[in-house]
């Protein structure tokens, strides 16, 4: 693509929604209160696996203040399918997930709901509901779930994809294969082979804003829902299907969203609130507690990943064998397919075989979490690559450069790569002063790559011009990380108006053209492209209007940064004076007389996106006495194609890195034998806090994506992928121990260090750190 110079893109204006957010005025999911509203509350299963024998809600319905009670039998049985952005989902599972029918399949699954005049009254009424359970044995890991004779979560589950055993009577929800070449022959060529098995814990997206909504459903069956979501159109379609309404009668107004990271795409509360409101004929507000968020939303899969990779002495990787088992939670649909496709994405490997297993267990149904599936798979592969570099005594970056995919290579997951920035990122990492800086005592350095496809799909945008030349832009993507500012910048870039005079709005489902979810790192790319096209349409209309004002043909006028220039000799149609260049504001001021309002719109489906690669360098310091480790220096490099607002691009990279560091070092769901999560709060589910982290240095690499007019790829998901491997590889450098299980929590690290220590006879109490 030709080198384009930008006026606005690449600058760092104050975000348009910023003042509302620093003053507390911005309205999030729980911030709306409607006249006459009731408060909804959910009764949740105390068992991880049980048959529901009976539910008696009579006493609750008669309780003071109670206006509606709901159980699973009140909701229709549906097999509708809705688009979840990157995949279609059977609504039946989503419906059962948010309200159990005859069986509960995880601890915390809702079994009944109440709406009452106060939250206290609603909660009190929940205590009057009598549920009889026949308790069953839960299965909590992929190994338990796939063991012969394991209790089954769903009698009707059928294995999708390439099953090797029986497809029924199993907890294996899917099995998928990806292969190339001859793996056995490939390993024959290898001079060195490294094989390890890895595990990662269930972790949560950890958005600070709990799920919240308020809904009303009228006598006419029409519903309005205000909620915190990444996908208003998903909420509309899923709510309609689950509550038994016509989607044509459901309007969803997205609130400001307090983080999502993939976890606010599916619905948990909205259909319940609508169904309660329909019964009570009053608005119903529902807000989750943090405890509910942990136990019954999100998380992402706990995993087991087995990796075997062979390389020649010169570092050429000749064969790979990867097996992945991902917990789906209680219903099918883990991100194991994406994990399998990402696992080897950075490398050109002639022979590989990958099999991926989607396994149901008695835990909450997993939801998307930032680059869903990729971090666990790449943690395993990047750990093994690190071991190969050690065996071959090669620099880890050189080994990766030797095998790095480039433009024209067939990606391990299928398509041929277009221009990609993997090598540019690796080169930048190698040149970065961090890579060659000395490592302190008790410290180790780790390096790892990350990959995500990035997303395209459906987007729409509308731009309306004011008579003052200002512009309003409407899109349908809730703004999680600064996308409104980026979209306003794109309009300003195309129209030459001040970015401060562009008003970006996240529109409701009755106003915005159909738009897929905020996810897949797609908003700045695909919705941004729609915004640019809509702005270009405005520009064409401005040229037509100017031509009219000069009585010339539209093709005779030219556009030059915010102005339309007349052809030589043109006269102003009204005054007869020599025509002068007209600014956007000057043309807009005359729009009533030149054809009426000026509106640009664009809608598109982007089938492809620009793949993104990142590389992280992590310095970890380990306390040999406690096993506690601390990230002391961190550098994240990433090809983003083009950074529209560099500050928010850096912010995405830093935030993703911090989440990945938390995943690597501390975060995990701790379950007891009964399948009850024992650490469902922020005190015990330990996410990184400010004192856990250093400044996170970012390097933005820009290899333009030819599929986008500015070269944008997307940024948000790649940065959560490398930290797991980078931290584990740093731990390997610091301690000499290859850890294969995350998180690297102090007890786990201490146990391993002590084990190594005990094996070193004659050196009691000393620990070889920094080996």
């Amino acid at each position, binding site marked *: 693509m030709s080198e384009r110079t930008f006026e606005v893109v690449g600058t760092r204006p104050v975000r348009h929604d910023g*003042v509302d957010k*620093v003053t507390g005025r911005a309205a*999030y999911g729980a911030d709306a209160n409607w006249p006459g509203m009731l408060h909804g509350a959910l009764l949740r299963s105390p068992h991880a696996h049980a048959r529901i024998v009976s539910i008696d809600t009579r006493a609750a319905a008669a309780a003071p203040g109670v206006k509606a009670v709901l159980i699973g039998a009140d909701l229709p049985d549906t097999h509708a399918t809705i688009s979840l952005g990157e995949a279609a989902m059977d609504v039946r599972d989503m419906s059962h997930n948010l309200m159990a029918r005859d069986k509960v399949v995880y601890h915390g699954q809702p079994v009944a709901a109440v709406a009452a005049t106060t939250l206290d009254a609603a909660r009190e009424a929940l205590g009057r509901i009598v549920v009889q359970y026949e308790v069953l044995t839960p299965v909590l890991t992929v190994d338990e779930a796939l063991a012969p004779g394991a209790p089954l979560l769903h009698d009707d589950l059928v294995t999708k994809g390439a099953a090797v055993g029986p497809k029924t009577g199993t907890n294996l929800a899917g099995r998928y294969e990806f292969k190339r070449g001859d793996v056995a022959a490939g390993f024959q060529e290898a001079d060195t082979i490294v094989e390890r098995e890895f595990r990662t814990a269930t972790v949560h997206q950890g958005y600070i*804003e709990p799920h919240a909504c308020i809904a009303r459903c009228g006598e006419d069956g029409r519903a309005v829902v205000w909620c915190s979501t990444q996908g208003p159109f998903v909420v509309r379609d899923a709510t309609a299907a689950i509550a038994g309404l016509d989607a044509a009668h459901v309007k969803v107004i997205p609130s400001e969203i307090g*983080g999502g990271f993939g976890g606010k795409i599916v619905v948990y509360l909205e259909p319940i609130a609508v169904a309660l409101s329909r019964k009570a004929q009053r608005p119903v507000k529902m807000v989750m507690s943090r405890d509910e968020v942990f136990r019954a939303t999100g998380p992402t899969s706990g995993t087991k990943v087995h990796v075997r990779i062979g390389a020649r002495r010169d570092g050429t990787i000749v064969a790979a064998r990867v097996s992945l088992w991902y917990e789906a939670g209680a219903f099918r649909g883990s991100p194991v397919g994406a994990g399998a496709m990402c696992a080897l994405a950075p490398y050109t490997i002639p022979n590989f075989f990958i099999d991926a297993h989607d396994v149901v267990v008695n835990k909450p149904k997993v939801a998307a979490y930032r680059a869903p599936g990729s971090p666990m798979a790449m943690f395993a592969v990047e750990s093994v690559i690190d071991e190969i570099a050690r065996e071959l005594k090669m620099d880890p970056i050189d080994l990766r450069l030797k095998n790095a995919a480039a433009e024209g290579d067939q990606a391990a997951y299928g398509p041929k790569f277009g221009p990609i920035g993997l090598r540019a990122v690796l080169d930048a990492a190698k040149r970065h002063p961090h890579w060659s800086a000395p490592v302190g005592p008790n410290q180790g350095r780790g390096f790892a790559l990350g990959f995500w496809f990035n997303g395209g799909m459906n987007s729409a945008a509308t731009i309306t011009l004011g008579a003052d030349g200002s512009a309003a832009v409407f899109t349908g993507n809730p703004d999680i990380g*600064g996308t409104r500012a980026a979209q306003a910048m794109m309009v300003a870039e195309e129209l030459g108006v001040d970015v401060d005079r562009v008003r970006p709005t996240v529109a409701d489902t009755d106003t915005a053209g159909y738009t897929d979810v905020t996810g897949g790192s797609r908003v700045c790319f695909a919705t941004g492209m729609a915004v640019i096209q809509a702005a270009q349409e405005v520009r064409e209309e401005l040229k037509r209007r100017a031509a009219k004002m000069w009585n010339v043909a539209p093709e005779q006028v030219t556009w030059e940064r915010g102005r339309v220039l007349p052809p030589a000799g043109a006269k102003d149609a009204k005054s007869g004076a020599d025509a002068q260049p007209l600014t956007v504001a000057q043309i807009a001021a005359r729009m009533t007389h030149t054809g009426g309002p000026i509106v640009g719109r664009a809608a598109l489906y982007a089938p492809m996106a620009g793949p993104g690669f990142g590389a992280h360098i992590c310095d970890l310091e380990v306390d040999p006495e406690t096993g506690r480790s601390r990230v002391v220096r961190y550098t994240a490099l990433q090809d983003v194609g083009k950074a529209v607002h560099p500050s928010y691009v850096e912010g995405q990279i830093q935030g993703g890195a911090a989440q990945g560091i938390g995943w690597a070092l501390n975060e995990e769901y701790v379950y007891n034998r009964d399948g009850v999560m024992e650490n469902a709060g922020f005190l015990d589910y330990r996410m990184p806090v400010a*004192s856990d982290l250093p400044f996170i240095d970012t390097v933005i690499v820009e290899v333009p994506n030819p599929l986008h007019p500015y070269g944008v790829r997307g940024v948000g998901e790649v940065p959560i992928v490398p930290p797991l491997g980078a931290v584990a590889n740093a731990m390997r450098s610091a301690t000499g121990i290859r850890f294969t299980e995350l998180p690297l929590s102090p007890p786990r690290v201490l146990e391993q260090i002590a084990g190594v220590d005990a094996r070193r006879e004659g050196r009691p109490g000393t620990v070889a750190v920094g080996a």
Partner: protein
Amino acid sequence: MKLHINTTINGEPAEFLCDGHETLVSALRNTLGLTGTKEGCSTGDCGACSVLLDGRLVPSCLVLAPEAHGRSITTIEGIASGDTLHPLQRVFLEDAALQCGVCTPGFIIAAKALLDANPNPTEAQARFWLAGNLCRCTGYDKIIRAVLDTAATMNEAAAV
């Protein structure tokens, strides 16, 4: 029986009715309409509900609403003076120290308490003071920079 509470919020006298077990964050948000204070965990771990109670930083989810009686509370809505943003608010915007923004009011309140107590904090002091506030979007980098930048700006202004 509801309790009748007389308090001062953001410099203005305020009164409200509440149950004895109601939390301050609930009274602020649901009774007084001050929804800028957010509730993220209800256990004092996330800091989204941070307010100043007689100048002291507290998570308002761990304060009972009746405890506000006769006290003075500062919320995010009371940080700006007139039409001028507080320096922390301005620098948070300039430094892009927010993404989703839901933790931002709590961070600004906590950072104000820090700068009130220590106008010239080191990076480590800022990180440990703000360790009671969770942010899941930013990795804290730009937040810490914004707090340190604000301190520098305010000290410069004070020196002039």
